[in-house]
């Protein structure tokens, strides 16, 4: 395997700055890897669009600035020239944005998301757009209109969702960095099942402007990487106040890189880690529970104070989430009607009234899972049902926030398995939406409360990755990086290297792609 693609983003950035390799070479190495393992019959299918020309052009520009030296080179962002993949829910000029839906097939955004403006300003070459469950609705990336993404650890298994494309791209060494979005776990659960790192920032920590809204009060953009430190760099780059997002926090980004560097010592002395009683045990696979218990032991040995906390209202979280999220979905997705942009489908017969064209467009343009949630949400908001459904769900949200407040009075960070199971087989839950929804039981409470969460690799169960989740109070994202980097260091010392390096070797031969 090519040495370059194996580097963490931080390592690659250091080599670029030192002039040991060029950004063009780095981008080309990743493009070659994408060409090798992403297509083909059993390819990873992490990418919906590969942005070859622009990525190489940006890389060449960075190389030229570095070669010229002087103030311009000094002013470059530390990660300038390090390539990145973008979840295809985030709008980009010059590349199609589909949300993995037929509804937006071929649509080109006339504007860039705020996070994309920041990535352009920092001159990170964009490798392309990654696959997801349609409009980010799903936990397996099987609900993409453009075919499922495969888990690089086992090509017959799901890479999690909705951000399976970004997680798989990073896990398969197709990109060192990616952006995801997390509404109920769409960054963290794919991170867990692909053995990578993913962070959902505090709600408002990263601008949502340009992320196609699924559920506005829950969505957050965040980093997807192979190391905690890489996430810290990317998070600091994309974070911060944005006047275009009214829900964006008006305060500086916390010192996340410093926190990750502090955590990398592995010392957890004096840190109180709260184990959430309700997020373990029944429903969690034995292998997942075993890796979780080992992580606790490692933290305890490193000086952490392990305490048990109880969040009794978490049992209502999944139910409340499946009322609030679809309600917002039903309204956010109303704009996809074929009138102004995207796909327009005319009814096969009968008169061409506006209602019928809108109806035919939405019937043909949306997949079943999207329709299911629109219908659920429309019902939940209906007159006579609003109080019982949306109103009650909002009350549950308050109760969950209170549970977290009480828990954080006892602990600095909370810990749980990220997902109750390892990656399941493709197709095994597509007929049972409720079983799929249960995958997000541990990640949803953070979205409901607006607090940040991270997943770090916790080892393997039957050869498949298990993720460990840390949660912190709102605006205390730095605590996640401290604890996450510490656990990463402690476990890597135990394993003798990174978990991702234990992943099976992918090649054109295994994926049926070009060689």
């Amino acid at each position: 395997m090519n040495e370059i693609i194996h580097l963490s983003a931080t390592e690659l950035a250091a080599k670029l700055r030192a002039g040991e390799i060029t950004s063009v070479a780095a981008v080309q190495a990743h493009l070659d890897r994408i060409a090798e393992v992403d297509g083909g019959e059993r390819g990873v299918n992490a990418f919906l669009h590969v942005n070859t020309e622009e990525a190489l052009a940006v890389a060449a520009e960075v190389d030229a600035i570095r070669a010229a030296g002087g103030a311009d080179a000094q002013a470059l962002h530390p990660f300038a020239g390090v390539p990145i993949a973008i979840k295809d829910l985030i709008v980009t000029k010059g590349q199609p944005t589909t949300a993995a839906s037929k509804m937006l097939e071929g649509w080109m955004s006339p504007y860039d998301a705020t996070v994309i403006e920041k990535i352009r300003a920092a001159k990170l070459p964009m490798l392309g757009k990654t696959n997801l469950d349609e409009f980010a609705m799903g936990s397996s990336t099987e609900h993409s209109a453009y075919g499922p993404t495969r888990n690089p650890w086992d090509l017959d298994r799901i890479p999690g969702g909705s951000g399976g494309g970004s997680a798989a791209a990073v896990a398969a060494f197709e990109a060192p960095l990616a952006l995801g979005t997390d509404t109920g776990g769409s960054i963290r659960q794919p991170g867990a099942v692909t053995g990578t790192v993913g962070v959902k920032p505090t709600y408002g920590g990263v601008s949502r402007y340009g992320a196609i809204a699924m559920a506005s009060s829950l969505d957050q953009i965040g980093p997807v990487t192979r190391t905690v430190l890489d996430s810290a760099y990317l998070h600091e780059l994309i974070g911060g106040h944005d006047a275009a997002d009214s829900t964006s926090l008006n305060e500086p980004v916390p010192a996340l890189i410093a926190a990750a560097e502090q955590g990398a010592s592995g010392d957890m002395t004096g840190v109180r880690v709260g184990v959430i009683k309700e997020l373990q045990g029944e429903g969690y696979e034995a292998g997942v529970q075993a890796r979780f218990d080992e992580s606790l032991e490692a933290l305890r040995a490193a000086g952490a104070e392990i305490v048990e906390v109880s969040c009794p209202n978490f049992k209502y979280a999944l139910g409340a989430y499946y009322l609030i999220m679809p309600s917002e979905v039903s309204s956010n997705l109303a704009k996809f009607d074929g009138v102004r942009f995207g796909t327009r489908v005319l009814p096969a017969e009968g008169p061409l009234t506006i209602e019928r064209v809108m109806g035919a467009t939405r019937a043909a343009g949306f997949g079943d899972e999207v329709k299911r949630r629109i219908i659920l949400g429309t019902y939940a908001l209906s007159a006579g049902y609003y109080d019982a459904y949306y109103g009650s769900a909002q009350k549950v949200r308050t109760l969950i926030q209170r549970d977290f407040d009480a828990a954080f009075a006892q602990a600095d960070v909370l810990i749980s398995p990220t997902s109750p199971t390892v990656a399941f087989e493709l197709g095994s839950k597509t007929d049972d939406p409720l079983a799929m929804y249960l995958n997000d039981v541990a990640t949803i409470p953070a979205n409901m409360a607006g607090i940040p969460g991270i997943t770090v690799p916790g080892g393997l169960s039957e050869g498949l990755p298990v993720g460990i989740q840390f949660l912190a109070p709102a605006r205390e994202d730095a605590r996640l990086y401290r604890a996450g980097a510490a656990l990463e260091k402690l476990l890597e010392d135990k394993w003798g290297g990174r978990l991702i390096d234990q992943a099976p070797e992918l090649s054109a031969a295994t994926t049926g792609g070009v060689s």
Partner: protein
Amino acid sequence: MASYTDELVDFDVALEKYDPVLGFEVHVELNTKTKMFSSAPNVFGDVPNTNVTPVCLGLPGVLPVVNKTAVEYAIMIGLALNCKIAERCGFARKNYFYPDTPKNFQTSQYDDPIAYDGWLDIELSDGEVFRVEIERAHMEEDAGKLTHMGGATGRIQGADYSLVDYNRSGVPLVEIVTKTIEGAGKRAPELAKAYVAAIREIVKALDVSDAKMERGNVRCDANVSLMLKGAEKFGTRTETKNVNSLRAVEHAVRFEIERHAAVLNSGAAIVQETRHWHEDTRTTTSGRPKSDADDYRYFPEPDLVPVVTTPEWIEELRARLPEPPAERRKRLQADWGYSDAEFRDVVNAGVTEAIEETIAAGTTAAVARKWWMGEIARLAKNADKDVTDMGVEPATIVELNSLIEGKKINDKIARQVLEFVVAGEGTPSQIVEKRSLAVVNDDSALGAAIDAAMEAMPDVVAKVKGGKLQAIGALMGPVMKATRGQADAGRVRELVLEKLGIEG
């Protein structure tokens, strides 16, 4: 049960039996520089779909940001309507599919309006004051403008296709909703007109809206129901939408009262529905049924944080309010030296601002009143339009007046010029030039015409010489004829007297 009837009951007869109950929803478009939730310019009349951003087009991924100036304008309207201002209020989504609404929901306010519980005193034509209670004034965004092509009615049903202009999409609106208004009796149509005129006067005085009804800056939905005199329960109401002139508001309320009475007298029931107003026939027709089945699935707008007002901010805005209209009227009447009757006529005609602006532009109060209450009012009546919708600007009057004072034209020609201005032919000077209307005050040309007339009418000349100066009038006809009406009457008189050696 059918409620359709062509019959109307005479207004006075209807009100012997029924009491009308009114309610108004007035939409005021704010004149902020940018739109309610986006940085797109808020400008009327530009090329369609040019004043747009991804936000007001509702493209995927966009988010709204509240326009602070629009919030301030809404608070100022609330204060001027004697409302309470919410300490904290939010936006909500009103969900419905329609192609003029790019997100397929309108961002509005639902159960927590920025201003609520106010009142407005309306002065009727005889000086009686009627208090209208204000339920709420809330902020929202306007929809785009649809133009339906083909089809007979100009409505979406039956159209071949429709054009949509999103320049108006997202323009800030304040919707002012009254409580139910009882007790207006026969004065209901007059009150309706006076109420909308008062709202227009206020938002114009606040300078928060251009307040041009013909452009839809101020739009009124008028709710009317009738109840039998002495009854306790309100009748079923209808809502006549988008009544966009003061006269139309008056006529629509009158028409609906006459129509309701006819339906009720026939034993049928009023259908709760929206009605369309037709200016040409001065009638309403059935729109769509409006019932409690309309379900907009309101829920709090998750993309916006609540608006929080502080007492300091509110007081700062209160300090910016202009003087209250009643006090202002007292001051204007004193300044202008109009009698009570003259001033009341001016107010009722809705030309207070027009006169004020005309005076500010450089005429006397008497001249301004002469034109706005005279010729412009006459032309408006003939055209069946509001006086202020005739396209006559204060500058037009100033220009006409200076043409008269400079003896370029006389009063009679000035009235003709005004008609040409209304017809859109240009400014008064341009029209005088183009149509060669300048008064003939070239004394040699005039002198020749006078000589000819005197020669033809020696008996008249004799009378004048004999001291009957008013006989000069008989010479005017032939002189005017000879000069095609462009002679200045005063100058003709002077010249005749001069020629006869009489001291004028």
